[in-house]
């Protein structure tokens, strides 16, 4: 790299350094303060095991629901002549702060919330149904928060497709369904898997939505870290758990990344 180039890159280099410092510092401090003993203690702790397991299943189910709902929506957007108008409805909620969107669900799902009130006013209920502070509420909130990421990822790979391939499928006698399952869907798999790895990663590390909709009882790893720092003031345990979260996220996402790379390679080889 020439001197001029190095100078141009320097500010971004500083940001990369700040990021590296954070990750390296996290790993270093977890090894120097708690060390393997702390990790062993955490992993043997039945409470932490439950939190870990809950984190994994909530993240996986959130991802699966987002993909199942996101695909039809992305397909609709890709084919709609008014795409830009609909995109505003997807992108605006996407860019509103997670806290605000989660707050919307608190208003909807609370014991005296919009849904319970409506059901009671219509005479369908005597006592409110408990919806807030349940795993279902966390799932609803997380799917709502992350669905736009999935839609945008799938949409981008649908729009990249050459529509002629679909036409060819139809001309060669494929039904609409056959053309979809044998042409459109396989070609859009990089987007689906890319979206899945993104949502999986973010859902694994979520804090705000699980705290506000799930409460302190049904914790996820992110919320556990938060309460270790702000309620128990145990920085070492929080650090070790952050590393645990990092590893969990990588283990969950790595197979998807490999799969995506392989599918892309195969599609581009055609």
């Amino acid at each position: 790299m020439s001197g001029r180039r190095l100078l141009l890159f320097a500010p971004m280099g500083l940001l990369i350094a700040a990021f590296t410092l954070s990750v390296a510092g996290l790993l270093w401090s977890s090894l120097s303060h708690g060390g393997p003993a702390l990790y062993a203690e955490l992993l043997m702790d039945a409470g932490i095991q439950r939190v870990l397991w809950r984190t994994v299943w909530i993240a996986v189910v959130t991802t699966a629901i987002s993909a199942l709902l996101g695909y039809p929506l992305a397909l609709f957007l890709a084919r709609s002549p008014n795409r830009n108008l609909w995109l505003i409805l997807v992108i605006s909620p996407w860019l509103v702060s997670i806290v605000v969107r989660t707050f919307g669900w608190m208003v909807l799902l609370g014991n005296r919330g919009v849904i319970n009130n409506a059901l009671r006013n219509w005479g369908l209920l005597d006592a409110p149904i408990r919806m807030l502070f349940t795993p279902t509420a966390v799932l609803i909130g997380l799917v709502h928060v992350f669905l736009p990421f999935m839609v945008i990822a799938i949409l981008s790979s649908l729009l990249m497709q050459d529509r002629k391939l679909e036409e060819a499928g139809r001309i060669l006698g494929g039904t609409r369904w056959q053309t979809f399952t044998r042409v459109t869907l396989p070609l859009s798999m990089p987007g689906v898997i890319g979206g899945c790895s993104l949502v999986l990663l973010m859902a694994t590390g979520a804090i705000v939505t699980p705290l506000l909709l799930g409460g302190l009882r049904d914790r996820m790893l992110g919320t556990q870290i938060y309460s270790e720092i702000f309620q128990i003031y145990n920085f070492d345990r929080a650090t070790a758990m952050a590393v645990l979260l990092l590893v969990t996220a990588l283990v969950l996402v790595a197979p998807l990344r490999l799969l995506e790379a392989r599918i892309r390679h195969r599609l581009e080889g055609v």
Partner: protein
Amino acid sequence: MPTGFPTRALAILLLILLPAPLVIVVGASFSPRALLEFPPPGFSWRWYLEFLSTPAWLTAFGVSAAIALASAVLTTLAALGAALALQDAPSRLRAAAETAILAPLLFPHAALGIGFLGWLILAEMNGTGWGILIAHLVLCAPFAYRPIAVSLAQIDRSLPEAATILGAGPGQTFWRITLPLLQPGIAASLLFGFIISFDEVTVSMFLVGPEVTTLPVTIYARLNDSADPVVAAISSILILLTAGLVLLMDRLVGLRIFVDVEEEGRRPAA
């Protein structure tokens, strides 16, 4: 799953559900009573006036706006430098640098929050605006780099060459040819940076202190105690601000950039 009736029906339902919680929040913010209700039992600006007359809320708003503005401008400059530096770099060097720039996307935010907190404490910068700004710069960098790199790649290389042949110096070529052609990417980068920083909560919640805190973190803290209409009023202001920025983005560069950036961004990573 061709775009038959079931796909369309599901898509429309989702397009209603995605903004629904936000509509509820805006509606509830006009309630004259101290209870969150939708539809509101009347109409009043009471909670907006309370927001405007509470110094703590206004300060948090100001801090968030200042940090978001600084994040947007500084990451855009860093990304512009990096994109220009990498433009003609050998492909392996370029791929390595891009992986480093995009790396923060691959880490769960809860873990990054602890990572930043660790070294900011050592640097005595936790609980300061500077600490939050540094974290936001790192988080925004990938979102600033991608649109600018995409814009740069789309420039017809013969244009700057023509300028040079016609006798323009490198500075002139940059200011009069390259920079104007980069406008869509730069606009997208600025808007992305502002929105992401202004909304960020998961990392920021670890870095705020008694003296400096951001608006989303303040909202979160308030929601943890009690959800009241003043939070709905502030949330409504945030929703309006975001919707305004999305429409601005639509006017300036088109919403398609969100989709394009997604696809281009994943390519080198895959």
